[in-house]
């Protein structure tokens, strides 16, 4: 039989203590198991890749709660001969199970030899029989190993079952040279960019583009905060190059979000409106495909390859001490504190200018300011004290949530309006046009509510309590 260990790119099932196996012999079966977890089995006709490939029911619900939008990807594939033996009591009841795995081969890794293994599986309620079976096997000289056959194969093939998880920061010290600290942060972000690059091109799942975009934005934010630390001849091209790359991801991500949120937007309008809006969804899907095609061209371009190669080269090269910018050798803590304080002050100053009649673009600028501040805090979090950081970020997040709701509604209203002539020209019927009106109205309500709440959210943020958390955060590294 062939067994494939399946998980998301970021190992969500493994991190939740679960294992999803795809077993193929006469049929194809999925097995969801784990330590002290009752195994669930499901026969499938085809290899599932996304949640909707699984039939509705408890199995899918359990997997859904963990993987969300992520695709299921093969981690390691093993071909082996399996024989099972059961120990039964006087009534014929199974009380212990032994499985023998022979001729174990990791597919695509002929260089790895695996030995024969026997797995003893405890049957709940009959632990004593399992203990006895293990004792017997030890008695005949078999060596006990900590991992089962599949886990041994994954380890032998150097597959990290925890998957890839991008951390915003790396271990830093407040008194290290600012240039060294910033390079370490940027190098860590470059790993996240590289990890998500191909998945974003292939549209393996929407999280790849999301994570690529976050890594690019964080990179841009840190670059922008690196003046007088990073040499200008590096900073200039990087600023321009990453702005171009990040800009190229915008349309595809906006449409990803639109399609992901489609059901949440249209369900409250009722079944008739949802049906009438199908042509809109089709048009969105076409725009989505075009946007991803464009993104694929950008990410696959020579310009992008050169930018990343040059960037990676600078991050890997040793830094010459000659003619470095004046703050390159300053303590990282002081430099980071100043840049974070500057971002915080900019957010407060701009936020105080927002009134009921401020144009939406200015509100969007505040959102960008809040994001930059958040990225700086995340990227330098390893030198920031935990308690005030968490307290402060909680307050910042509340403001960001409000700004996010406003901006998503604004973007989606604008996009919907821009589609109307196209739909009209394609002969969309009256029901569709009425449903578009309903959807626009609903999005407009969301936007208006978010805008009305902004003043309250911002007042909560622009408060003595937030200022105290912020001061505690900054003072710890500024001195």
């Amino acid at each position, binding site marked *: 039989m062939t067994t494939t260990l399946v998980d998301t790119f970021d190992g969500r099932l493994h991190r939740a203590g679960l294992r999803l196996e795809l077993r193929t012999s006469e049929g194809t079966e999925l097995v969801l198991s784990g330590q002290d977890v009752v195994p669930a089995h*499901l*026969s499938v006709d085809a290899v599932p890749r996304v949640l909707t490939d699984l039939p509705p029911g408890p199995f899918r*619900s359990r997997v859904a709660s963990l993987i969300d939008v992520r695709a299921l990807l093969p981690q390691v594939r093993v071909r082996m001969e399996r024989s099972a033996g059961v120990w039964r009591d006087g009534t014929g009841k199974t009380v212990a199970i032994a499985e023998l795995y022979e001729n174990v081969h990791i597919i695509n890794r002929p260089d790895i030899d695996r030995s024969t293994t026997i797995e003893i599986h405890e049957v709940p309620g009959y632990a004593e029989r399992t203990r006895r079976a293990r004792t017997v096997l030890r008695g005949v000289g078999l060596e006990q190993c900590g991992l089962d056959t599949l886990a041994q194969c994954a380890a032998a093939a150097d597959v990290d079952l925890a998957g890839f998880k991008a951390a915003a920061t790396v271990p830093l010290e407040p008194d290290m040279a600012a240039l060294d600290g910033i390079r370490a942060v940027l190098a860590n972000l470059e790993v996240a960019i590289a990890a998500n690059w191909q998945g974003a091109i292939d549209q393996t799942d929407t999280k790849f583009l999301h994570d690529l975009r976050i890594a690019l934005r964080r990179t841009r934010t840190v670059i922008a905060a690196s003046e007088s630390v990073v040499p200008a001849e590096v900073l200039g091209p990087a600023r321009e190059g990453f702005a171009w790359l990040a800009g190229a991801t915008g349309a595809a991500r906006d449409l990803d979000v639109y399609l992901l949120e489609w059901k949440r937007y249209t369900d409250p309008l009722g079944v008739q409106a949802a049906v009438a809006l199908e042509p809109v969804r089709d048009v969105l899907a076409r725009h989505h495909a075009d946007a991803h095609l464009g993104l694929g061209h950008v990410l696959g371009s020579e310009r992008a390859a050169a930018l990343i190669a040059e960037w990676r080269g600078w991050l890997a090269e040793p830094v010459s001490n000659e003619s470095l910018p004046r703050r390159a050798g300053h303590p990282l803590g002081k430099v980071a504190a100043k840049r974070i304080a500057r971002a915080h002050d900019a957010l407060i100053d701009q936020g105080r200018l927002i009134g009921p009649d401020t144009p939406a673009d200015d509100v969007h600028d505040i959102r960008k300011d809040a994001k930059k501040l958040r990225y700086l805090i995340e990227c330098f979090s390893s030198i920031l004290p935990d308690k005030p950081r968490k307290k402060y970020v909680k307050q910042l997040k509340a403001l960001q949530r409000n700004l996010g709701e406003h901006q998503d509604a604004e973007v989606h209203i604008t996009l919907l309006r821009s589609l109307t002539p196209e739909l009209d020209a394609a002969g969309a019927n009256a029901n569709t046009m009425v449903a578009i009106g309903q959807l626009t109205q609903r999005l407009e309500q969301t936007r208006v509510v978010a805008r009305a709440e902004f003043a309250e959210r911002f007042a909560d943020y622009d408060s003595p309590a937030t200022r105290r958390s912020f001061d505690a955060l900054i003072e710890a590294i500024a001195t």
Partner: protein
Amino acid sequence: MKVLAIYSIKGGVGKTTTAVNLAQQAAASGSRVLLWDLDPQGAATFFVRVKPSVKGGADRLIRKAGSLAANIHATDDPAVHIVPADFSLRHLDLALDNTKHPTRRLAALLEPIADRYDVALLDCAPGITLTSESVFGAADALIVPTIPTTLSKRTVDQLTGFLSEHPPAPMVLPFASMLDRRKRLQRDIVAHLMADVAGFLPTAIPNASVIEQMGIQRSPIADFAPNSPATLAYRRLWADIAARIWS
């Protein structure tokens, strides 16, 4: 975890065979199943070859926190576990009566293990007793085997009448059990039940000798007669139930 009770006021309607076979079908469609044998006769326990033994008896099972988990045994299907019954369960009403909130007690016992299973199937003894009321308090749905006799509708009506007087009531999903398709009267009765009784499921379980063989084979029929009409009927019945519960 969804709690489904296989329940009927009447005895001898196929509750236990339904519970055991639905447990197998639920597991085959990807659920982790806990079968709780609440009938002192322990027939479900017998069918899955588990020793009929409740540690400390019914009183301890009902009163002691964590006692349900301590009584769980695996069956030969790795996705189906069972809390076995023994004869001490004849005192279940008395044990429940000695608790503070007897009609909520079974729900409270199931709550700590709710994350471990997707479905709990309760195989209930017949009658309307304090145990039944506690079952009604724990169940999301009552799966009611209904044999095709002239009094069947009256039995279902008695149950729904009782439940309407004791809210909140679980969903009631009756289905035709032990149907002999050769008899026209039975076919007519089932047709009327499907037309007249709210929630009546479209799949009927046949009165088949293969079901009787469960007592000899001591396993669900899918294990020894996987392609029999009865196995296919249980598969369809589980699909009917799942569609109602997870729709």
